[in-house]
């Protein structure tokens, strides 16, 4: 036993002797710097989203909100629940806690209407972000920051139509999501041959095989449109497996995706700039409370669609590494 242990220890130590490709220790935590002490402005803002835990997109929304809170000395209370009823409960509890402002996604307007109304009757200003562009005013929210999903879909569709797309495949990775359906509908409005496909977004190998099966089944697919960066990475694998020549375009951006755009495996990404959504939602409340500002003048403020392709990737790549784009 003992010689075995000794041998194992030696083996581990020698393997452990530094290896490339890992974390660059020098880049660790140089972020931050500046900013006000939390709460120095005296405001507390509740930030409620329908984030499904573990999605890189929401991570950026939150990062933006936190940076804004830091810059403006606001105390931020972040909470999230993908279930509409529970999200309504989270808004209600923010009202009960008498926060100074509420920023929330309005992904399921009907379910959230009651608690948003409770907030406005209690005199708490509400701003919407990310989802609910058509309903935010009806619900009584003051401002809205986000992308118009149909507009984003249409913009993407027009661009690939210009490149000659005839039969794109639009990959929906979350069953029953209104905003994902809206994106695909937008693509279809520009390219009538667009077809939808459902995949299980929580399992990379299932996404890959489903896409691979679809690409093998229908060789006429010329564009694959994914609606999230991690799904696009799976699509790259699936395309290789099915030896498909379809071009790949995607919504949303992350660090990996930025690299794939740079090396040409992905044509372009449509970025709705989630960091900006989070940052602006907090900032607008701050300005409203402090200065009475009304950003957008009663109209939604669009954070996208912003195209990321080989022409501008060099500028954007460093930001993805800092998790701000």
């Amino acid at each position, binding site marked *: 036993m003992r010689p075995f242990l000794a041998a194992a220890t030696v083996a581990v130590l020698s393997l452990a002797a530094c290896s490339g490709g890992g974390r660059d*220790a020098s880049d660790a935590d140089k972020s931050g710097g500046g900013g006000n002490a939390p709460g120095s402005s005296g405001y507390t803002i509740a930030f409620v989203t329908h984030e499904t835990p573990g*999605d890189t997109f929401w991570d950026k929304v939150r990062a933006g909100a936190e940076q804004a809170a830091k810059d403006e000395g606001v105390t931020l209370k972040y909470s999230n629940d993908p279930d509409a009823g529970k999200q309504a409960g989270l808004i209600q509890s923010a009202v009960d806690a008498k926060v100074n402002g509420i920023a929330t996604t309005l992904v399921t307007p009907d379910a959230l209407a009651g608690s948003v109304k409770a907030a406005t009757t209690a005199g708490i200003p509400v701003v919407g972000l990310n989802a609910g562009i058509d309903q935010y005013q009806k619900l009584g929210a003051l401002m809205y920051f986000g992308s118009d999903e149909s507009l984003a879909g249409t913009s993407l569709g027009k661009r690939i139509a210009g490149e000659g797309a005839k039969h794109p495949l639009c990959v929906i990775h979350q069953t029953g999501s209104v905003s994902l359906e809206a994106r695909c509908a937008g693509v279809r409005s520009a390219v009538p041959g667009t077809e939808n496909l459902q995949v299980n977004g*929580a*399992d*990379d190998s299932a996404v890959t095989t489903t896409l*691979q*099966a679809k690409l093998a*089944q229908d060789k006429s697919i010329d564009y694959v449109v994914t609606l999230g960066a991690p799904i696009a990475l799976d699509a790259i*694998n699936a395309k290789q497996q099915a030896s498909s020549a379809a071009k790949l375009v995607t919504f949303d951006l*992350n660090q990996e995706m930025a690299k794939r755009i740079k090396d040409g495996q992905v044509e372009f990404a449509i970025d709705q700039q989630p960091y900006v959504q989070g940052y602006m939602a907090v900032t607008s409340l701050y300005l409203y409370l402090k200065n009475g500002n009304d950003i957008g003048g009663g109209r939604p403020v669009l954070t996208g669609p912003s195209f990321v392709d080989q022409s501008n990737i060099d500028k954007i790549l460093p930001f993805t590494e800092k998790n701000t784009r």
Partner: protein
Amino acid sequence: MSTSPGATAPAAEPAAEPTAGPAVGRWLRPGLHPRALLARPEVGALAAAVVIFLFFLLVAPSFRSFASFCTVLYQSSTIGIVAVGVGLLMIGGEFDLSAGVITTSAGLVNSMFCWYFGVNLWVGAVLSLGFCLLVGFLNGWLVMRTGIPSFLITLGTFFVLQGANLGVTKLVTGSVSSRDISAIDGFDSLRKVFASSFTVGPATVWITVLWWALFVGLAAWILQRARTGNWIYAVGGSADSARAVGVPVVRTKIGLFMAVSFLGWFVGMHLLYRFNTLQAGNGVGNEFLYIIAAVVGGTLLTGGFGNALGVAIGAFIFGMTSLGIVYAGWDPNWFKAFLGVMLLLAVLVNTYVKRLATSSTRFTPPPPEAPTRNPSPAGPPPAEPSPAGPSPAEPSPANPPSREPSSRGATARGKED
């Protein structure tokens, strides 16, 4: 280990099956009798698999190629590898709801540890294996120690792992996905082990398919030939009776939980080395797919009955159905609905075949067996005490509940040959 009939029979026989005579066991030996063959757990699943396979051959032209078949096999293997363990565990009478997220945990531990400290990936892989085995051990130990149902214990583990996956990933990498590890030493060799592929003609065969076959074979061997297999059936049929005849119940069950986490680790390694990065929220929901595969494959939800081949066929049915719908080019909005119908049909066919088998064998075996296998009419206690008599190993004598494990035990024992 020892496979001589003398050694195996006493372990399982009085434990799970005290009343029905050895005659039944002989009757149900595989291959001896066509009806006995039908009573094997995997036969219903096999029939369902054949029906579904023919169905998709008919309706989906692109399903008909060897390449498609290999894709289906790959999809099945990523479910099937863990399902083997989950199936064994369910035969042993327990559940593991943490089996889905542990695949993600396994990959994350390996990936983040090596990325953060810049060490060879093999170190992380071994560390991750240790971590997973520890989780499995804790699951089993807590279940045995507290007596709380494994459903609850592993639900707790499920939440802990899910939260820790997110929290720790965010802490270490500053994002909710792990970093790309493909440039770290050891990547290429690990990828060869866990995520390589080779081509056969136009088709790509992933190495997970081979690993899957190996694990299924190993599990089948353990269940049918090794003493451990008898223990697994015994603890799943009736843990108390098993304990009474000296089966190491605690050791067996903890071992089963550890087997599940080992296989979860294995699939986690595959995902990591195939996709380079992992999203911390992934893996949730797959635990049900493993359980579905096991159940479709003839494993009883109540434990004590099932086999490895059945579970493999169950996983294959899932892979075939989920991809067959795509190959058929059906409206994707109906995906889940089709899937549900397919799975229900599979279970129905499965149950039907099994009932056919048991109802026909009811008339063939020796007289004393008939009442014990027939649940409702005719056979209340009168027939019971006569043949084998109340066995001393049986703690609760001859009341109706004792019949259930006994009929299962008979079939299970029949398979051990």
